[in-house]
């Protein structure tokens, strides 16, 4: 069966520090991968998605970037965090265009 792992679960970072969040999927190959940010009461905001290694699409201009160095690995990064980057970050995958997305358990990021 397929599983998705996200780490860390919780992260507290100072303003201006770098960020690296990692997501890996097991039990499937060539998944579509997604990064979302979830703000309380505001739903899920799609940040990046990837249909293959090295292929990244950005949905909104921001202080963040994403990379997909391996088929089942998706990384969310920032060189300098802003206070507004605080939030709950979720990674998701799906196998095909008409299939539902499956989510990891997220990383709660607090910027001080």
């Amino acid at each position, binding site marked *: 069966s397929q599983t998705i792992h*996200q780490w860390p679960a919780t992260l507290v970072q100072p303003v201006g520090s770098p960020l690296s969040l990692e997501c890996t999927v097991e039990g499937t190959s060539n998944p579509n991968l997604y990064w979302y940010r979830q703000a309380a*009461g*505001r*739903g*899920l905001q*799609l940040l990046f998605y990837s249909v293959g290694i090295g292929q990244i699409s950005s949905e909104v201009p921001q202080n963040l970037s994403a990379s997909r160095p391996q088929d089942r690995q998706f990384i969310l990064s920032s060189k300098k965090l802003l206070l507004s980057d605080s939030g709950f970050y*979720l990674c*998701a995958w799906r196998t095909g*265009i*008409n299939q*539902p*997305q*499956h*989510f*990891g*358990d*997220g990383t*709660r990021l607090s910027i001080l």
Partner: protein
Amino acid sequence: QKEVEQDPGPLSVPEGAIVSLNCTYSNSAFQYFMWYRQYSRKGPELLMYTYSSGNKEDGRFTAQVDKSSKYISLFIRDSQPSDSATYLCAIFNNDMRFGAGTRLTVKP
């Protein structure tokens, strides 16, 4: 107008009640419909997935889709305290759109 509208609640019901959660959407091109359940500090978990109008049942949960009205519902029968969570509707064709989520509390 948002593509998916969902009442954020919060919704509080006694144990054993029937719960009705609803979403409306604006674009008839969306053909696939889902409900996710999200516990506090966890990621959304897929509950129901359907692509046709009508009802789909899974245990105590029933998903209902009315494409003509662009209206989707999730019914929970015999609600339990363990059903307390935020429920998100989602629709997609090529792109996925989520509702903001309805926070449900089932009181023992």
